């Protein structure tokens, strides 16, 4: 996996793991791969992976069971929280880009509404 | 132990190749000489064969110790030997011991070749008598003569050993000096330093003159002591020698 080299990789790994939780690659309450497995899978230093996991444990998204590994929190609220954060990040990015182009808030709302109308499947 | 085995085998292989070379050249010389002389006198043939052996023996006699010295000293500058996880003293002693054993091996083979070529020449020189009778009647060695011959051989062997250790010392000292000097990187400077150091060392070791010693055993003791001292010095110097390959 390719990571950006000029921003902390541990944050990028956190995003990857969050995405995998949302997409149910890692299911709620289930064990995620070990630190070493993740390190090899993502092609990143094992200490960096450990740092990400520590952060996710602090945020309550992962739970460490001594001797058994790391598990996705068995709590739906936690998952919704992740989802919300990820959605917020994406909308934040979109907002930054569009307002830099000069769009006002109402113009942004109109643009999104138009877009969604056109995409009705 | 492993280091010693490897170093012994590498040198043994080279020594045997050189031996084959010596025998090969000897035979070629003999065959060429056979054709050019044209004579089929059996005695002349024996002399020719023995002579070929003796000729190349004399030349190769110095080739072996020089080859061994080069092989031995070069290895101390190689990464693959200096990275081995053993103490410098062990490495040096293993190397020197492997070299000495090979020297003794070659020396013994050369003695055999030398004796054989002498006998062959003699056989060619005498007419009807059998070689064995000739040897029994003419060559009458007393025990003292055998002892003298044996001691001479041992002293020659010791001389080669001490010489190798001296050259080793000279190269080590030369390298250490060259590394310190600002202009020491040049190859010519190094060679000059080596030669000067070796000459100085030979001069120092000549202070003990073997010929003036009456006792044979004392005469043998001197090179042994010299060798021990040089080994002690060299294995200490090895700690300051850096690798180049």
């Amino acid at each position: 996996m390719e990571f950006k080299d000029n921003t902390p990789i541990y944050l990028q790994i956190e995003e990857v793991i969050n995405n995998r939780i949302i997409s149910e690659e890692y299911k709620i309450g289930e064990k995620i791969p070990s630190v070493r497995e993740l390190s090899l899978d993502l092609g990143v230093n094992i200490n960096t992976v450990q740092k990400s996991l520590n952060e996710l444990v602090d945020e309550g998204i992962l739970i460490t069971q001594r001797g058994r590994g790391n598990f996705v929190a068995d709590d739906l609220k936690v998952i919704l929280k992740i989802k919300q954060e990820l959605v917020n990040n994406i909308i934040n990015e979109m907002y930054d880009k569009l307002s830099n182009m000069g769009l006002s808030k109402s113009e942004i709302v109109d643009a999104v509404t138009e877009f969604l109308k056109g995409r009705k499947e | 132990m492993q280091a010693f085995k490897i170093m012994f085998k590498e040198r043994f292989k080279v020594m045997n190749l050189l031996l084959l070379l010596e025998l090969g050249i000897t035979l070629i010389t003999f065959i060429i000489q056979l054709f050019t002389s044209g004579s089929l006198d059996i005695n002349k043939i024996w002399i020719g064969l023995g002579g070929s052996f003796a000729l190349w023996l004399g030349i190769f006699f110095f080739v072996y110790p020089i080859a061994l010295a080069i092989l031995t000293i070069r290895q101390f500058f190689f990464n693959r030997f200096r990275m081995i996880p053993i103490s410098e003293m062990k490495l040096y002693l293993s190397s020197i011991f492997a070299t000495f054993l090979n020297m003794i091996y070659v020396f013994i083979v050369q003695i055999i070749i030398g004796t054989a070529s002498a006998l062959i020449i003699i056989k060619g020189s005498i007419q009807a008598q059998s070689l064995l009778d000739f040897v029994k009647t003419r060559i009458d060695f007393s025990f003292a003569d055998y002892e003298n011959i044996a001691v001479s051989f041992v002293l020659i062997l010791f001389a080669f050993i001490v010489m190798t250790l001296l050259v080793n010392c000279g190269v080590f000292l030369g390298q250490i000096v060259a590394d310190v000097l600002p202009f020491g990187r040049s190859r010519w400077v190094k060679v000059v330093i080596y030669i000067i150091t070796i000459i100085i060392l030979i001069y120092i070791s000549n202070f003990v003159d073997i010929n003036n010693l009456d006792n044979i055993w004392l005469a043998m003791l001197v090179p042994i002591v010299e060798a021990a001292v040089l080994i002690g010095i060299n294995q200490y110097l090895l700690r300051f020698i850096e690798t180049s390959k």
Partner: protein
Amino acid sequence: MTDLLKVNDITYKKNHHVILENTNLTLGSGHLVGLVGINGSGKTTLMRIITQLNKNYRGDITVAGETAVDKIKSKVSFSDDLASFSNSTKVDNIRKFYCKVYPDFSMSKFLELINFLDISLNSKLGSLSKGMREKLVIALCLSRETSLYLLDEPFSGVDSMARKQIIKSLLSWIDENSSLIISSHHISEISEILDEIVVIKDNTIIKHEATEDIRSQNLSLEEYFENLYQKEIK
């Protein structure tokens, strides 16, 4: 916790020319460290000092608590370029040499590595291309099961694709309790697997940072390194 490597106030001169001066470094175990510096800055010299191939230095080296030369050598595996082997030597004979002299050499690991790197045991050293030779050097270095690995510019002749593969797999070939110091000109290529970076400049180690700390300043490792030289240009 004892540090894995302690480089204590090392000064090294050759022919009156200063190469390293008052150089210090402390390294823990379980780290993959990048050693960066311009050509001739002393990276190889530092590695050779740690390995005890360069001898005439002031200061001291401690590896895994050991200061005796033979003990240090048993704890460090350096990427020797095999120049002292003749070109007609077969790879298998080089392997035999390593097996005999290094008690910690793992035959199984070596076979696994050369299989991955596509090197034949029967090839003669002289017949290997530069890239293949470098791969062999890496395989021999990493097949020893020891505490500290030193790879000195290990892939200059290896093609870009193979380089990426090897870099990724370094993660699996180095044990979690060991450390690796790797010097390379391709900083950006090895950047993701490193967790620490050491910079040599002006004859000494000027920086020893965690790579993530650098990235949190929104700098890539390459930019960080270049900035250290920009100050002089300005």
